């Protein structure tokens, strides 16, 4: 207390919110895992901490932004006449980000890392820091940063949340609540549809204003009931965006697993990660393996970035990748860097740990706590949770 720390804040230890926090932790952890995979794959192959990975992530968000703009979801257009989104838009952004990020990753490898392959690893690391700084500062010269842009939510076809009751509120209240919610949703849809009609010149300002008032009234009623129901119930609220994000991450991870375990190039990757030189001698085309590694790792970052930016509604700047990059990196190390399941596990642990720190009310130390976990894990298992603790051969 003397140091001005409020160690037992107001929100501390509310059992009712714990399940929700845990589930969020896992959902968010899936993104950390996706970023961590990129670090871990490159590390496994080249023993290089690819500090520019966060910046590739950043570029992924920009690519998604540009695609959304190209498809017409620009701020000006959306203010004038919003239009609905479709899963196709989402798919285009996803694939676009993955492809461009994959190529950028490969380009970075070719230009900056390949020449450093036979050099001391620390020199390669500094080059990676240099690339990261160049993309942050150099990118800011050409990419839109002021004001920091954002992908319009109209481009996002998966809105809303899934609700799972753990403890239902008393029946009459629940009925009222469901009713109010439906009215609110209907008012929202009606309002939106009317807005979309602007595109086809089928609406008037008056009509829209009336609907807007209706929406406001519905919202007030709904939020009043929401507040009444809150203390009497326990539930999980899962934004659809987060679910899609976690689902896509899972699919990508399964794809990666298949690729690494079942394909020829995957075998090559495993061989190279065991012993770079021997694999080369045994006829594995090391350059192809490194190429694939960067391609896939960066594409995963691109996918993560696009979903992160869109579903969380984040403003994008050239520093967009710093925080998730650092988290992903820590997740990779916690899981055992170089180990693919480890990265996934690490990501999930980071997500859940963060959620628990917030739950306990110490959210001001949230970002420090990831590192505390990291240090504790490394002190007990010096190679991370799933890293091979093999003894150095003498």
């Amino acid at each position, binding site marked *: 207390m003397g140091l001005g720390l409020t160690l037992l804040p107001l929100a501390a230890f509310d059992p009712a919110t714990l399940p929700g926090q845990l589930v969020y932790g896992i959902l968010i952890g899936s993104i950390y895992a996706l970023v961590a995979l990129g670090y871990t794959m490159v590390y496994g192959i080249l023993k290089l901490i690819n500090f520019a990975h966060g910046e590739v992530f950043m570029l992924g968000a920009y690519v998604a932004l540009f695609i959304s703009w190209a498809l017409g979801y620009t701020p000006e257009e959306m203010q004038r006449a919003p239009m609905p989104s479709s899963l196709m838009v989402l798919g285009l952004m996803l694939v676009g980000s993955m492809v461009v990020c994959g190529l950028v990753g490969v380009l970075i490898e070719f230009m900056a890392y390949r020449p450093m392959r036979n050099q001391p690893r620390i020199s390669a690391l500094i*080059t990676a820091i240099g690339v990261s700084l160049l993309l942050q500062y150099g990118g800011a010269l050409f990419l839109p940063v002021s004001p920091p842009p954002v992908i319009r939510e109209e481009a996002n076809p998966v809105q809303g949340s899934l609700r799972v009751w753990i403890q239902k509120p008393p029946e009459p209240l629940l009925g009222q609540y469901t009713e109010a919610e439906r009215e609110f949703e209907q008012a929202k849809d009606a309002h939106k549809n009317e807005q979309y009609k602007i595109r086809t010149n089928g609406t008037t300002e008056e009509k829209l204003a009336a609907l807007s008032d209706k929406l406001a009234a519905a919202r007030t009623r709904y939020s009043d009931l929401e507040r009444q129901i809150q203390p009497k119930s326990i539930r999980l609220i899962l934004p659809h965006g987060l679910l899609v994000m976690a689902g896509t991450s899972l699919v990508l991870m399964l794809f990666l697993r298949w690729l690494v375990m079942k394909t020829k190039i995957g075998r090559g990757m495993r061989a190279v990660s065991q012993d770079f030189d021997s694999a080369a001698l045994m006829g594995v085309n090391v350059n192809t393996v490194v190429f694939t590694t960067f391609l896939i790792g960066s594409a995963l970052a691109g996918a993560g970035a696009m979903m992160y930016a869109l579903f969380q509604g984040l403003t994008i700047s050239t520093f967009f990748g710093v925080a998730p990059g650092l988290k992903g990196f820590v997740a990779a*190390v916690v899981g055992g860097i170089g180990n693919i399941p480890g990265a996934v596990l690490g990501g999930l642990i980071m997500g859940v740990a963060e959620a628990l720190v917030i739950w306990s009310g110490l959210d001001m130390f949230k970002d420090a706590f990831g590192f505390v976990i990291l240090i504790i894990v490394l002190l007990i298992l010096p190679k991370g949770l799933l890293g091979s603790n093999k003894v150095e051969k*003498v």
Partner: protein
Amino acid sequence: MRFWLVRLASVAVVLVGCFLLQQWAAASLTPYLQSLVFLAGGYVALAVSLNLINGITGQFSIGHAAFYMIGAYTTAFLTATFFKAQPLDSTAWVVLMVVAGSVVAGIAGLVVGLPSLRLRGDYLAIVTLGFGEIIRIVVQNVKALGGSFGIDCRVEPAPPSIMLMWLLAILTIAICRNLLKSAHGLPFLAVREDEIASSAMGVQVTKVKVTAFVVGSMLAGAAGAIYAPFQVFITPLNFDMYQSFIVLTMVVMGGTGSVTGSAIAGLLLYLLPEYLRLMKQPGTSKAISIGGPAVAAGLVGVIVLVWLLRVVQAKVVGSKWQRWAGNLGALAATALLVYLGSLALHGVPFLRSRNYTMAELRMAIFALVLIALMLLRPAGIMGHHEFSWDGIGKRLRRRTSGAKA
């Protein structure tokens, strides 16, 4: 006896030199240039002290700003709490703070150094990085340290900070150089080279590692202790990850293990972005501004140049003159490419509409120079070598004898 005379004389020279530097700077330099002189000294001290951990002992630490921060905040806190009563002359106070800051930072170094017994390489690196972030976040949340707003650590009258910082920088260099000159440095180098073999030779690896950590962090803490009163006001932002990376970059760019290399790179990398600030249109005091097409072409040009120079390095075998011709050719080709490229890029309206001043470009240029230097000289400016008069003599002799032959 003679030894002590020489030693006393050299200490006296350093003291007088730093004193004169301080007097000269205070009398004839603007506050801006004084800042540059001061901070250049600070970065030399930081880079060389990190070199002790990273380059000489081979412990991959990338959180050096944490120790710097601890030194600075120890001083800031003590100054804010006790200095109002003016217990001491300000120089004496700062010297006392240097001791306090380095002790606290040294203890922190011990805390971080202990895990290094179990961790190697990249794992240690991430732990040190994490330690830096933890310290920053904790400070940010401690009201007594000013939180994220920062803390006032004024020492009045202003202490001779330039003198103190350069004394520290020279002390740091001297410590590292002495270590490498005496047999005491060998275990440190041996630990860097091969831990298992060192322990088989009876080197107490843990003790060596922890010593390096503690001494390195103490020096960084001392630098922080001098930095805080000079800055007058410090915030956690002064010590973020970027600072750690810059100092690490200085060490690697100078050549890991080379004390002179770290010192030179420290000066170079700190002063480069500041030099870019100073660039003006020739003959006027107007800031240089460059059009978008030229910037884009230049960016690509540097990358091309690096590749061409690498090709020259790798492929052109022949006399020195031939190599130089190759380098110049690469340079000329790039210049042409940049020129033509910028003309061609004028066709892009987006680029044409943009104009950049040096102030905006400087960080991008800095990053580009970093990459280019690493690609062209992966072992750093000095490699593993040290500056020495003997070495210079040898090179000169070789050159003359080569000319004879």
